[in-house]
């Protein structure tokens, strides 16, 4: 048992922390008010290697481990949720799926430019009428010779208008006895004829990001863009969520920390009844609770990251980390506003943005209700992990860090 982060982890954490604090924090409020994404964010995250953090060097990435990804997400969301959302969709839900399921050709065509930050990736599973009920989706893909023809609309898609590649799940066998086995995953490039997208405005939170819809109208893609086998789409999508949820858990942990730091600062500055409000026990109780939640959430996501490093299946542990951290971050943000009183209710302080941003995460990547059922399912023996044809590869530093030439030779 060893709870220590390595020196490498500490330096990664500090690097991402410094980037987010210096380059994003000073202007994030303005972008949030404008309902727009700072155009510098994605290019800078690409230049700094954050967009390829845990992808092997030979695939254009930085060769760090999965714990580094979690630490980066914690630091990013401690500044703004939209930064972490980038990692959830670009890395967790898309790039890591290519690493897990992609053919060598797909890794070269899609993963390499994504890991380098030259192409941005997103994930298309949810539809206007199908969220938790994935099997209720209407998107279709019909085989036509050496191509598939994709039709359908995806909704609530993060980076909808920024992404170059979408991991798209569609029904290929509408007559399948089990609809879960009638789905297939594809990579759809945003510049294919028939792909359109747009952002949704007037969201409660994550306003400095892009969330929208993507539509495919008779979009033709080569068979070589199919990820995995026909009928494997549901399993692939669920394996993507094991990684996306990990980033959400780590990010929500950072949001709890941001709430805690803001509350401690304000509680020491603000006085009522002749003393700092930090001297009032009911304020102390809120702060103590944030400490409790921050540390518990952190241990849960780090365990999930550790399991990923080992190559161990972590569906249950990641679900638990995501459920716990997002519920706790919503509560921490609400209490942080309460600590700030009326000031917390105004955009003058960050905590109102934290509260608006925290609500999304208890809905996306498995609602808290879905995670409740998942945990009950495991505890009651009603749910087991089905074997996957391709597992997420365990972190192997030598392989991850080898340069392309060395890797090819070995």
């Amino acid at each position, binding site marked *: 048992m060893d709870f220590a982060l*390595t020196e*490498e982890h500490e330096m990664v954490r500090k690097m991402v922390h410094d980037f987010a604090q210096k380059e994003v924090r000073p202007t994030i409020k303005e972008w949030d008010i404008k309902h727009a994404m700072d155009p510098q964010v994605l290019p800078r995250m690409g230049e700094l*290697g954050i967009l390829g*953090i845990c992808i092997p060097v030979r695939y254009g990435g*930085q060769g760090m481990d999965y714990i580094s990804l979690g630490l980066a997400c914690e630091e990013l969301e401690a500044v703004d949720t939209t930064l972490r959302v980038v990692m959830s969709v670009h890395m967790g839900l898309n790039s890591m799926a290519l690493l897990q399921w992609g053919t060598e050709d797909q890794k070269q065509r899609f993963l390499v430019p994504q890991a380098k930050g030259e192409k941005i990736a997103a994930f298309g599973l949810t539809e206007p009428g199908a969220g938790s009920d994935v099997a209720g989706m209407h998107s279709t893909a019909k085989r036509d010779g050496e191509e598939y023809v994709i039709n359908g609309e995806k909704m609530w898609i993060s980076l909808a208008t920024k992404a170059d590649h979408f991991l798209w799940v569609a029904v290929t066998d509408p007559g399948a006895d089990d609809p879960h086995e009638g789905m297939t995953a594809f990579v759809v490039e945003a510049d294919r004829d028939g792909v359109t997208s747009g952002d949704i405005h007037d969201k409660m939170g994550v306003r400095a990001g892009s969330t929208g819809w993507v539509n495919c109208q008779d979009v033709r893609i080569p068979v070589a863009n199919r990820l995995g086998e026909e009928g494997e789409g549901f399993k692939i999508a669920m394996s993507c969520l094991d990684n996306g949820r990990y980033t959400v858990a780590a990010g929500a942990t950072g949001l709890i920390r941001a709430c805690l730091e803001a509350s401690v600062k304000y509680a020491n500055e603000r006085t009522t009844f002749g003393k700092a409000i930090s001297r009032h026990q009911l304020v102390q109780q809120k702060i103590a609770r944030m400490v409790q939640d921050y540390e518990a959430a952190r241990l849960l996501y780090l365990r999930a990251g550790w399991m990923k490093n080992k190559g161990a299946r972590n569906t249950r542990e990641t679900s638990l980390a995501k459920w716990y951290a997002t519920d706790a971050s919503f509560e921490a943000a609400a209490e942080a506003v309460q600590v700030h009183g009326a000031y917390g209710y105004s955009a003058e302080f960050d905590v109102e943005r934290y509260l608006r941003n925290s609500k999304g995460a208890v809905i996306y990547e498995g609602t808290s209700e879905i995670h409740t059922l998942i945990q009950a399912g495991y505890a009651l023996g009603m749910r087991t992990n089905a074997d996957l044809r391709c597992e997420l590869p365990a972190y192997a530093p030598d392989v991850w860090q080898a340069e392309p030439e060395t890797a090819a030779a070995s």
Partner: protein
Amino acid sequence: MNIVVCVKQTPDTAATVTVEGGQVSWGDSPLVLNPWDEYAVEQALRTKEAHGGHVTAISLGPESAKDALKQALAMGCDEAILISDPALAAADSLATAQVLASAVRKLDPPDLIFFGKASVDSASGLTFAQTARVLGRPLLSQVAAVNLVDPDGGSISVERLLPEGREVVEAGLPAVVSVTKEINEPRYPSFMGIRKASKAEIPTWDIGALGMDSAPKAKVAWPEIFAIALESTSCEMIEGETPDAMAAKLADRLLEEKVL
């Protein structure tokens, strides 16, 4: 070019510094690479990128100062050396300069030695000047821009930031350069640099390794430190429709406060 950058580990600038029993304490605040030195490291790296060469970071401090050196390595320095000896625990700026100069003399002779303008903790702002003096090299201080480095001609031309403006100064190499924050924007460490730094074995040189018979004696001591009483300040935002209106209001307020 052979380039040396001298760095120090300091408490984070966000640390709460207190004085207890005549001694300064920053509690358990994290220790970092002195923020002013980040500009020196960046300038050393840019010089190497422009002219080729080798950058060595050196630091005098306790074992923990290796973390600051690792930050310098992660940013891209080629090599790092820690100078550490219990006999140097009370070194003042001159003793530090003598030790740094001894270390520099042990290295391949450098063309340029970079320093930050001061450390954020003791903030004497003297060490770079004293090191230049001990080494007998020209000193370029308050450098806000490097206009030209000519390794073949053995010269450097810089802009010094003065209260009155900027002054262009040339010197022959080797020279000692202390830089201000206007000179560049320090880079973040790269992930590859972080990996390299975390694996690096940083050698430690003690007094003996420097070829010194004994630790140079400090001439300045801080037997007791007092905390000054905090002045209470308040911030008032001047608002107005136009810049002119705001300026007029500001002028009125300054007159009212008898500042003007």
